[in-house]
């Protein structure tokens, strides 16, 4: 492992959207076994410092590859596409659909069966997310970077919606 290796190389995985999560988890543990600062507690200060930097990089790589949205953004970055964090999708139809979903989310509390409604919303958001993942993966494989970027922006939207659904679920449980 070197500091200039990309996240996929660190884990010995092929560069691409589909990631073997088990291989990733196994490799992550192997690398931490080797480089975690606890392995260097009785070593020299210099080695302790290096191990902390390596362990931090392994963690960063693992977090990026584990998370579908972060992984997609990282892949685009590797392909040389800049993502402006402020940027948002311009797909009117998609935005309209999002608005409707969000309105439903806001009305959950007053629904007859809030938990069932929330579950419906959750599975709908999940399906939309999967569809955009497929779109991203296909576009990236075909090197149609504009389309991949558009799918990523939608994935970000949907991930945020999923988080809000989870937060509301937690609120309702309390």
């Amino acid at each position: 492992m070197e500091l200039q290796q990309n996240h996929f190389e660190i884990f010995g995985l092929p560069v691409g959207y589909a990631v073997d999560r088990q291989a990733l988890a196994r490799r992550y543990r192997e690398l931490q076994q080797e480089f975690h600062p606890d392995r260097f507690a009785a070593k020299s200060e210099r080695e302790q410092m290096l191990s902390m930097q390596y362990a931090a990089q392994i963690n960063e790589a693992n977090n990026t590859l584990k998370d579908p949205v972060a992984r997609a953004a990282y892949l685009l970055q590797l392909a040389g596409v800049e993502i402006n964090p402020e940027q948002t999708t311009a797909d009117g139809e998609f935005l309209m659909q999002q608005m409707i979903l969000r309105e439903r989310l806001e009305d959950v509390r007053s629904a007859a069966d809030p938990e069932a409604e929330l579950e419906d919303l959750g599975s709908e958001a999940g399906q939309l997310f999967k569809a955009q993942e497929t779109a991203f993966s296909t576009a990236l494989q075909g090197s149609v970077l504009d389309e991949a970027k558009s799918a990523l922006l939608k994935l970000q939207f949907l991930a945020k919606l999923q988080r809000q659904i989870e937060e509301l679920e937690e609120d309702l449980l309390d």
Partner: protein
Amino acid sequence: MALLQISEPGQTPEPHQRKRAVGIDLGTTNSLVATVRSGAAESLPAEDGRVILPSAVRYTEAGVEVGYGARAAAGEDPYNTLISIKRFMGRGLADIKNFGDQLPYHFADPSAEGSGGMPVIETVAGTVNPVQVSAEILKVLAQRGADSLGGPLDGAVITVPAYFDEAQRQATKDAAKLAGLKVLRLLNEPTAAAVAYGLDQPDEGGDVADKTIAVYDLGGGTFDISILRLSKGVFEVLSTGGDSALGGDDFDRAIAEWIAQEAGLGTDHDAATQRNLLDAACAAKEALAGESLVPVSYGDWSGELSREKLAELLDPLIAKTLRACKRALRDADLNAEEVAEVVLVGGSTRTLRVREKVQAFFGREPHADIDPDQVVAIGAALQADVLVGNKSREDLLLLDVIPLSLGIETMGGLTEKLIHRNTTIPVAKAQEFTTFKDGQTAMAIHVVQGERELVQDCRSLARFELRGIPPMVAGAAHIRVTFQVDADGLLSVTALEKSSGVQAEITVKPSYGLGDSDITRMLQDSYANAEEDIAARALREAQVEAERTLEAMLVALQENGAELLSEQELGELERAMEALRLAHNGGTPEEIRSRIDELNTLSEPFAARRMDKSIKRAMQGHSLDEFDTP
């Protein structure tokens, strides 16, 4: 008489035999120290045979008293007897007032110089802060360890609640520094408990099954729930939650309030009355473990406390802990049924009602065989034994997460999260900043910890001032600030102006904690009080550091010195080591330190090459098994 072993000049002696390492549970109510001897971990008793050291410190004109004697005096001398001080660690005075407790202490002006924004308590022996009070407890435990192991300690693992934020962890480490302890690692209490139960050990068939473990830790003043994943010898903290201001003390307070109400005492009591009420409450609670109804009396009043009444008083508090369990499971993306093992920690889990509720929540009987007061110290001792190098446990690795998000203040008092909670540490995150005025050469970064959007709702950790930015027009400077959180959960910050490559100078002002100069001053104060010879201690510390450095170097040279170093490099390193040995045997602390620095600098390329070798080995191991697995 044993013969002294003397090595030939130029040859390296065998590395030390067993190191003296301990695990310390620095608890809110009770503290313990444990060590590994003859392969087994055990708590170390005081001369009177008791292993528990109550976390109570009493200041008198004659000196400092720690433990049972101090706790017994809390009723008669409440202002000078500090109990549950752990709740004050890394906190400001305003936080503590918010606890809503009836704290008997006299607080001094927190803006006083050198207090680091921490609450300062006035005692007959002068003012003290929570770090100093904790250091007194650690000193007693360290001494107990040194007496029992026959010499000064080489290192300690100190446990902290998984929920502790950066300031609280830093305060703990500072207390260890004041007590003269070398901290091998700050370990999360629940992780230590899981290690103590040997949940990482193989079963009869020799396999270690992957499993999820919940550690329910209800101590005197803190509640923690941690969801751990054990997988091929790696303990991964999936999530943590809890409440750093909820514990058995609250049980006692709830019962005490009930007693006060029944006895017609009203709600406003002086410190001594409150202490006595709490003692009566605690006694009643403990008696109910074996009875279904116990008599309670206070002053002229006497009555009875039943298990049902106790359940009624405690259930709202226990429900709070179960809500936190639910949240932690959710963060880990799990259901209660998916938890394979539940471990109970903390004296308050002896309360029958707590066990019933926890068992019902997780649907399985929790582990409670090891004394819940000792289990954390025992796990810490096992880990200390590994970290200090006595025992190789290649199969065991503890990965921890940051319990609360780390962010910085942006325009309008908003928080921008840089590192999200439950991210595995160590972790580094870089953020770029620019100047907003022409010629601006300094900027301040306010780091906070917490989940809320507004800075005022998060905990203020520290303010970092960057200086030495080259003057440029507004917006032209690109300052890359790297926030690094180490394996102990402690934050450090570095900054670089990218276009000029200038390293900005950083000064840290912890919001509720000590700067380096404060610690030095307090160390000096403590020497003055303890009649300890400051020079002797400085020398001893430098010598220990020298021994540690030499030994690390010896081990490294034995492992692959011949392979990775040219003859010339090897010769240079050996000369630097010899110089350090000479300084160690007769030099001043300053001389020893400068030889250590020289050796460290000289060995940097060697350290880097050793790392490269590890990397190559890790990569090769990988290419072999990675592609063979289907």
